[in-house]
């Protein structure tokens, strides 16, 4: 179970989609953290085996959390959510 730490304050709601599913995020979230708080820990299929992968380093080093945004592979841990953003699973489909 994941979610948000209570008592740190809330921010404006940002709605985006991941693999066609609506996800509620907060302004200032990265895609990876919004998905994690939503319970979606796997965000990519690995390059040759197609295994589920998710965040490893969470600081832009490992590129294991790559997702697709507007046809471009981006690191979900360094890319901020935007309203209406369409995010697809990274790697092999």
């Amino acid at each position: 179970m994941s979610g948000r730490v209570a008592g740190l304050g809330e921010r404006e709601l940002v709605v985006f989609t991941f693999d066609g599913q609506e996800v509620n995020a907060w302004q200032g979230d990265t895609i990876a953290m919004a998905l994690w708080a939503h319970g979606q820990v796997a965000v990519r299929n690995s390059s040759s085996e197609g295994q589920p992968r998710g965040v490893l380093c969470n600081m832009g080093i490992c590129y294991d959390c790559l997702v697709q945004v507007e046809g471009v592979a981006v690191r979900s841990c360094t890319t901020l959510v935007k309203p209406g953003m369409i995010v697809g699973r990274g790697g092999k489909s």
Partner: protein
Amino acid sequence: MTSADATQLDAVIEADVGIVGAGPGGMAAAVRLAAAGLRVVVLDEGQRAGGQIYRQLPEGMQNHGVIQEPPSHDAGHDLIQSFEGHAQGGGAIELVRGATVWDAQLGRLWFEQDGVSRLLRCGHIVLAPGAYDRSIPFPGWTLPGVVTAGALQVMVRGFGVVPGQRALVVGSGPLLLPTVTSLLGAGVEVVAALEASSRMRALRAAPSVAFHAARRREAMWYMKQLWRNSVKLQWGWTVFACEGDGRVERAIIGKVDSHGRPRKGTERTIKCDVVGAGFGLVPSIEIGMRLGADTHMLPVRGGHCLVVDREQRTAVPTVFAVGETCGIGGAEVARAEGDLAAAAILRDLRGLPVASALVSQARAERRAADSMLGAFAPLPGLHDLARPDTIVCRCEDITRLRAEESAAMHGESMRAIKIGCRAGMGPCQARICGPSLQAMATGVNTCAMDVPVVQVPLKPVRSETILNAPE
């Protein structure tokens, strides 16, 4: 920031001094330079000042003591405050957020920001890019939910996200403690905290902690937090494997010997839904290497580090390096070295003398850090955790067996292993597998390895970014 905003960004910005990294080292340098009236631009991959160690929540959120912080962070908050004071509208410091530096030459730093290709032109450069967690491959380390210790810190202290319900923390070194306290602050149950070093080995760090007032206070604070929450640090234990269907559900843990080799028959299974693993840190050195700085191998400081003189100057007279890029040492080292580098630049540009107290402060902090971290230098036996079918290169899905075959056929250098099986050729550019790849492939249990090869782009960026690079 929307794309519309992004297109309004200037392609080229200028500064007297360009700084890479807004952690303690970069901030300390920036504040001293700004106070002397120089224009400073700081490039950081994150969204807020503080770096990894003093991670701040996104703007609009506040940690009013919800997540406990160690005493040393008070100094961090003061530093952030003075940095942000100088960085407010029209101040001497400009913080460029979300900037990925992908090439560097004398007086020039090319970076991508929100998909836009930009260039910083500057006189002097201060490199404070920090470090990242050292990963050791073990069966199941690729399962979603298995992350680095640093990743958990970012999750909790950087975004206020609860990592899971039951967390296992494993690895080696002083950073396991803040990982545990952050998890406790987020209301997560820490099912076990495993330090691979033995208690005897760790005791070698005791004098350097006992005779350093700030470190002593810090250690006491952590001990109190762990004791209060009934979390016991288990010395000489680590994770052997993680298992689960699509994400981690349980871990096999066990004892290791004094070299880090797993001891058969000590295994136990423990239920958990998140695992944080951090076997020390690896310095980020590629920007410095690209600029022409020399490197040397210092296992105590995490591997290959940039070489600097007594005032933090690299082999390139206008390029300075501070903090973790010169070897792992922690926030106090980074801060003292950042301060010193700024003073040396002010002498270059303004003829101001460098106070000898700054030099001795930086040296004293470095000495204290070296003697403490010696007790946690990477244990080579941990490389035995990976089995033949364990993936060692996550980018290209290369198993240990394939890396071994490649080394046997093509040679034992990093270059030969890479060419033979593509390990280390993916988007992380061997940052994750590199520190252990040679040991994995050759079976020679050493933590030494070839000097990393620096390639441009220094990190993967869009091809448009490179094609449209401003001159």
